[in-house]
């Protein structure tokens, strides 16, 4: 968890545990009670002060499902089903998936196109909702959440890395990395500082002011990774992260993921390439919307001749 979130936790002083008792609107009952009590004062000044505090906290306060939960099972899927309604016929995208990914794992999800891995990716990324079943992310059932709550989850708990980088054009690398923090309402100085640190970490400290079209593919993907790390999310989701890169850049990116994994981040990579999956510690294979195998993997050792992430790409 990031430093900022921890501060909020102390502020609220709620009774949060890992229990799944949060209502979808995300307002913890205990918090409301606390405010009521502070508003009962007979003194008008006191009451006004309470109101003022309420107003202040309302803009900043986060639901406790964001601030409180630290679950050992980061991802837990129970009987997850996704049905696509294409008018005349219903297509079963995912058939009763049960899957658990623990904090700190480095997982590859493999499968041919149409195997259901993209559907799973969208659900894991909280971009889509399952038709049936439960998806507990960090102990919270996100299956019943509304779009704005899902936005908040994506913002705080998930970092995305896409095949086509998906940087915002005509916007500098620095601003791209700042974007998730902007949506998290972080202050300008904090944003810039952290964005620079993250770019430094992915080896692009000197390229902060460059526009996406001035960067190579590998560099763009490293900006995307820096952006994914912006709010210090527990889960990094990469969807074919090397699909648009040459071999050298692909290896660089995967080594960066390995390093992040070693530093404690949970990384899930969706891919159809065996060489990419070889970097991970667990490989889950999909076919026709079902898991066909789920095996641990011994990650391949970094080769000495490959360029490290701290050196320039192409």
């Amino acid at each position, binding site marked *: 968890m990031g430093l900022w979130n921890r501060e909020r936790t102390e502020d609220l002083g709620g009774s949060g545990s890992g229990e799944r008792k949060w209502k979808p609107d995300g307002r913890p009952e205990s918090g409301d009670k606390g405010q009521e009590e502070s508003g009962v004062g007979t003194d008008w000044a006191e009451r006004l002060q309470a109101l003022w505090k309420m107003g202040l906290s309302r803009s900043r306060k986060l639901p406790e499902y964001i601030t409180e939960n630290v679950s050992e099972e980061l991802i837990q899927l129970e009987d997850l089903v996704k049905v696509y309604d294409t008018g005349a016929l219903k297509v079963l995208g995912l058939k009763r998936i049960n899957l658990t990914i623990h904090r700190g794992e480095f997982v590859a999800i493999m499968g041919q196109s149409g195997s259901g891995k993209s559907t799973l990716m969208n659900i894991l990324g909280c971009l889509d909702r399952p038709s049936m079943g439960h998806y507990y992310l960090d102990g919270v059932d996100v299956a019943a959440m509304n779009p704005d709550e899902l936005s908040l989850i*994506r*913002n705080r708990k998930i970092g995305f890395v896409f095949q086509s980088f998906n*940087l915002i054009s005509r916007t500098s690398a620095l601003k791209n990395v700042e974007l998730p923090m902007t949506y998290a309402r972080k202050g300008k100085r904090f944003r810039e500082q952290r964005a620079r640190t993250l770019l430094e970490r992915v080896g692009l400290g000197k390229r902060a002011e460059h526009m996406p079209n001035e960067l190579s593919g590998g560099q763009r993907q490293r900006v995307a990774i820096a952006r994914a790390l912006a709010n210090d999310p527990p889960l990094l989701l990469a969807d074919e992260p090397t699909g648009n890169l040459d071999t050298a850049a692909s290896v660089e990116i995967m080594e960066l993921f390995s390093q992040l994994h070693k530093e404690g981040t949970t990384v899930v990579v969706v891919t159809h390439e065996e060489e990419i999956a070889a970097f991970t510690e667990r490989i889950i294979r999909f076919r026709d919307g079902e898991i066909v195998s789920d095996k641990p993997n011994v990650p391949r050792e970094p080769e000495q001749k490959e360029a490290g992430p701290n050196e320039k790409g192409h």
Partner: protein
Amino acid sequence: MLIENMKMAFSAIRANKMRSFLTMLGIIIGIGSVISIVSIGDTMRSMFEGLYREIGVTQAYLFIGYWVDDVRQSDYFTLDEMERVKEVFGDQIAYIDSNSHASADAISGRTTVKFAFNGVDYNYQEVQPVNIVYGRYLNEGDVLGRRKNVVMDTTSAMNLFGVENAVGKTFRTTIYGTTEEYTVVGIYRKKLSPFQAMMMGANTEGGEAFLPYTILTWPNDYFYALRIFARDEATMDVFYNNVKAYVAKSKGRQPEDFRLNSAKDEMGQMDSIMGGLAAAVGGIAAISLLVGGIGIMNIMLVSVTERTREIGIRKSLGARTRDIMIQFLTESAILSACGGVVGILLGGGLVMIGGALLGVQAIVKPGVVLLAVGFSAMVGIFFGIYPASKAAKKDPIEALRYE
């Protein structure tokens, strides 16, 4: 966040310069034309007010109503009655005369000029100051003695005598059938703006002269109207009502049988007509603002479609529906407000330049400017709502997949 949104909006506007300019141009033209029409209206109103102040806003004419069917000789006025009005109201009257005038050919040597003669009292200068450049104004002796002395302006003197300083010169004219010699005792210079000259019918060929009203109105004459200047503008309405009531009573009539034409009322009427006209025409000009707003909506819709992928990315990074909505609304509001500001500069500038060219003090009220900026931003927000909500509602998966 607001600043962040505005930065994003400006960068989006800059990214498509031509398109943004054309979109703004609609608002520029709309706001520009509304501002110019309203300002032209305000300028005209102030010009008319200036004109009425020039002729004396405390001035009024009192006469029997044209709606009265059985007009009697006693409904007209005599000099005795005028004197009595003077006595009764005393200090409240700044000036009073019989509103007499005549026009005739003035002849000096071989030059004949058509002159308009105004009969005035010696203290007329107190209510209608003129800038005497040669000689003197008419004095009490001229008026009481019915002396055939006149005061004219420099243009009239130039037309009749060929020189400005015509003091002491004489001319011959026929007033009410009798031909006599008149002597010029004073010359003044008129200071009128071109608009005032036009409205007050100053002619450049003919002439005008003041002469004692006692020459035009004899003791036994009946005359149609009393011309009065009130002393005090603040209380003039009450004063004139009293005068009307007094006159009506003295003539055995009802006050509503008399008509009181005050310059202030006329000015008020003119003002409200002009104000109404400016509002109506300004409203029609505002139709172009509506069309400009539709243009904003159209371009914002195009922009939303083009930036579908960007919307998807933002959503995947945690942007809520509201964040996207506000982003696009900010963009359309800025587009419109910028157009509004430029439109104000354009419209206001046109009116100012036009005013300078015509030698008129153009008026662009700050209130109108403020209203225009506010209105244009509102247009931007109003016509931005649909595209912005369309953007905000996009499904993130589909948006990310969009090519």
